[in-house]
């Protein structure tokens, strides 16, 4: 197969999105907040619409701020419902995201004639358009694919956030009480993480769609977690898996002529279920071999 620059761009962008999502997902999973990630990815919809209405464009800072704010509001709301209203946590999550998502769809339908935003693009995203969606400066200079830059910035921010607050995240994830006793703001860490999740969702939804963000957030960490318990290794494996998923996903979509994001989720699912079966059947030989590979990775 000859080198195809478009394929390379798509795989590169996909990998960066998968890495940002996956690294955040590791902490979401360990904090038993996997479904909160799902909830946020649905709930940011009204924020996106409002930001779109304000700025009139599908990209830019307004979008990130709008969706980020709604994402954090959703988190506050979930916590409020489960702590103050005393609703069980799964129901709090369910009610919050469905009502926010419904508001978002209603807004889109009302504004259908005024804005170039339809329901489909929120759910699916289309990473295949990355190479033709170019960033053109005011002077008319073509700088290359816009979404690739976006996902690069996103990945840099996520990795920066994790690196900067690694100790805080680690302590507050594994021992909340201890974190509180040493004066760490667990609430602050929590909202910081949720803010990053919202931002990543928005920044990625254009490329992979709202629900597939969840696939990239939860499935690679869940799969990696079955191979290792070490936090560093968990993050490493998640990153590797993100790259592999994006590579194989692209070619699966290419051969099936289908959505690339969907294919990435499918590949992730294949790894996930293969791992579960291998772990479950307790095939001693294969298991040991793969575990040693996991150790080395």
């Amino acid at each position, binding site marked *: 197969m000859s080198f195809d620059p478009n394929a390379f761009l798509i795989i590169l962008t996909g990998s960066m999105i998968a890495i940002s999502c996956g690294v955040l997902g590791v902490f979401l999973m360990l904090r038993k907040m996997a479904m909160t990630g799902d909830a946020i990815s649905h709930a940011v919809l009204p924020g996106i619409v409002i930001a779109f209405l304000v700025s009139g464009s599908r990209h830019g800072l307004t979008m990130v701020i709008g969706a980020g704010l709604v994402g954090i509001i959703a988190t506050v709301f979930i916590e409020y419902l489960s702590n103050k209203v005393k609703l069980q946590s799964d129901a709090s999550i369910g009610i919050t995201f469905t*009502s926010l998502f419904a508001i978002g769809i*209603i807004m889109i339908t009302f504004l259908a004639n005024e804005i170039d935003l339809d329901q489909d693009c929120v759910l699916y995203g289309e990473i295949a358009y990355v190479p033709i969606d170019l960033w053109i400066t005011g002077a008319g200079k073509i700088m290359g694919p816009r979404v690739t830059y976006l996902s690069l910035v996103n990945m840099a921010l996520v990795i920066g956030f994790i690196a900067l607050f690694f100790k805080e995240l680690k302590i507050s994830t594994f021992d909340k009480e201890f974190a509180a006793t040493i004066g760490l703001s667990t609430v602050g860490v929590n909202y910081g993480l949720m803010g990053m999740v919202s931002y990543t969702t928005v920044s990625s939804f254009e490329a992979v769609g709202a629900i597939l963000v969840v696939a990239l957030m939860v499935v690679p960490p869940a799969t990696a977690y079955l191979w290792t318990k070490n936090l560093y290794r968990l993050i490493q494996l998640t990153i590797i898996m993100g790259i592999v998923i994006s590579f194989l996903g692209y070619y699966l979509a290419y051969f099936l002529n289908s*959505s690339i994001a969907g294919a990435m989720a499918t590949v992730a699912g294949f790894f996930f279920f293969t791992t579960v079966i291998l772990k479950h059947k307790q095939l001693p030989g294969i298991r040991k071999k793969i575990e040693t590979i996991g150790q080395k990775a």
Partner: protein
Amino acid sequence: MEEFIYFFSFQDPNVLMVVTGIVLLSVSAAMVGTFTFLDKKALVGDAISHAVLPGVCLAFMLSGSKNPYWIVSGAFVTGALSTYTITWVSNATKLKEDTVIASVLSIFFGVGIVMMTQLQQSGNASLSGLDHFIFGNAISIVGQDLWVYGFLALAIIMVILFFYKEFQLMVFNRSFADSIGLPVKRLEFLFNSLMVMAVVTGIQAIGVVLMAALLITPAAAAKFWTNRLSLMLLIAVIFSVISGIVGAYISFVLPHMPTGPWVVMVLSLIAFLSFFFSTKKGILTKWIAKRNYQRKIHRDHILKALFAANEQGKDGLSCGEIYANFPGKSFRTQYAIKKLGNEGYLSDNQSNISLTEKGIKEAGRIVRLHRLWELYMTEYMNIAPDHVHDSAEKLEHIITPELERQLDKNLNYPQEDPHQSIIPRDKDQS
């Protein structure tokens, strides 16, 4: 207004059919949802509704049409597969259930999207309207579809009513159900099938993403009005019928408006109203109760302060002295003094506040409870006299007359508390 009358008089057989359909499916979803809510499996419904997508696409691929029998069967197969997968992976691995649910949900949805984009590229014109399954539009349901969905919804309702007792036991006391010989595993299988069926029935009208709300929200709202299962089912059903009809009406009036979001909006509104204004557990009810209790405590403390002044031989206290007793609460203190005055406990004579006859009696009662409890703590619990004040400070507000009599009797009608203060008694009592 004309539209309103046209819609609600149901002259149009189409409107009647759509409303009947949506009411049936709301009722079945609310009933199933009540049990899943109590079983703490609310989000499994969300997973099923996403997992239905590949099944729907598969049905399209195999049949090449929008035949409802195929769609229902396809959706049922992958929906059921997802619940089975969730249970299996949760049991087989160390992953937490929410991680498993989120993984299964997104993987199934991803596979569904792959299939859907392939279908869209196949260019089959009869496949248009596939996106109704994602956002839902009740108005798009006609004729044959309605019979299938209506029949399914009715079947779900009947089965739940028939196995009401069994499901109740399964949700509330699984081990007991097991021990009296109920086939819990088979019941669970039946119930999971009902849950999948309820989701399948709703997808075309409500949409994949929002179907979860129809399962979760009515039950969560109903829980705030009652603790009885039968009543909870009834309330959940009423809530979802109301929102189903209102949602259908709005999407009838506003063209191109999908039904699902409006049904969910009305449902959420009802739920939030329940959270705040429910007479049992609502936020507002709790807040009022808490505020009243705090006011009562504050009132009791003012009476006690005046009583203490009386014991020291003073006639009363000035406003300033009372305020000084409760730093930072001057507004509330002012309010409490006014209220106590109105109730006839205090008399305010040129800002010298003193207890009336009635006030002395009431204040004496509080002080008596305080001192009786202090004595009880030292005598019966062997707690040092200098450690009993805090506990008595709390309990003086809540000891009932019955408890008071019991304490008095057990302590053999004492005259003094551990600090050698006289325990005040009403004259007719002593």
